[in-house]
């Protein structure tokens, strides 16, 4: 049980870091707000004080191709996740683990080939 407590307590650092990370912007911004002079004019309130007047909605509709790239990223990301335990446990597993992983990667390589042939990777 002792090692479990060591394991859990080691995450206290992460919690501390998380709090620091959250507090830092809050403190910095609110301190700035307290210290700086506050004299707004109409010119200062515009989005770009010395730029072009913004027009249209800020959100534009993106090309669907971005989405395909994102989808492929997720799938290969999931594949990569399986590589971690494989690499860590490789010493204990031996040669058949290599074969298993090769089959796995070849099947997913087929997916990459498929995307390639279907012209998903080309930007037109």
């Amino acid at each position: 049980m002792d090692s479990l407590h060591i394991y859990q307590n080691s995450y206290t650092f992460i919690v501390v870091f998380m709090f620091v990370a959250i507090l830092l912007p809050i403190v910095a911004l609110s301190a700035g707000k307290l210290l700086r002079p506050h004299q707004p004019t109409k010119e200062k309130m515009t989005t770009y004080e010395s730029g072009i007047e913004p027009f249209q909605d800020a959100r534009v509709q993106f090309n669907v191709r971005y989405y395909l790239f994102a989808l492929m990223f997720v799938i290969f990301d999931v594949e990569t996740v399986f590589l971690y335990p494989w690499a860590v446990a490789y010493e204990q597993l031996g040669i058949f683990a290599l074969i298993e992983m090769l089959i796995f990667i070849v099947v997913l390589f087929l997916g990459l080939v498929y995307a390639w042939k279907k012209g998903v990777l080309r930007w037109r």
Partner: protein
Amino acid sequence: MNGEFIAFLILSFTAILGGILMLNLKKVVHMLLSVVLTFVSLAGIYVLLSAEFVAVVQILIYSGAVTIILAFGIMLTKHTARDERTSNRLRAALVGVGVLVFFFTVYGAIDNLFFGPGAEGLHVENTQQIGERIFAHYVIPFELVSIVLLVALMGAIVLARKEGEENK
């Protein structure tokens, strides 16, 4: 009341909070952020359960990749239409009753549940333990997962590709 219990309370509270916010917020991007809150809290719960690897995967896949997919989904679609909510009191009440009944049923079921001694040493070389299980025992499901991923990839391409673009 030890530190583990307090951490669990905070994490489960934020996880549920994220879910409720997701359902009730009006803007899509805010919904997305509340989902991320749930994902991260779940990762914290995995850490408490000595499932370090799963926690990292949760951050990597869900908070990272899936969130990006969702963000792309938001960028690809129009959001001029606002979420018009027709509040139905009766339905809300029924859902509330359902949730309460489920809560008390499960609570009653697990209230005096005794599992026996829990597994020990799960956190020791966690990733390696998982690797040994997957690649020595669950070989067949693992290879099947590659087919699942392949099908998902092909499906994504077939469905999201614009009509009329042939493979040349």
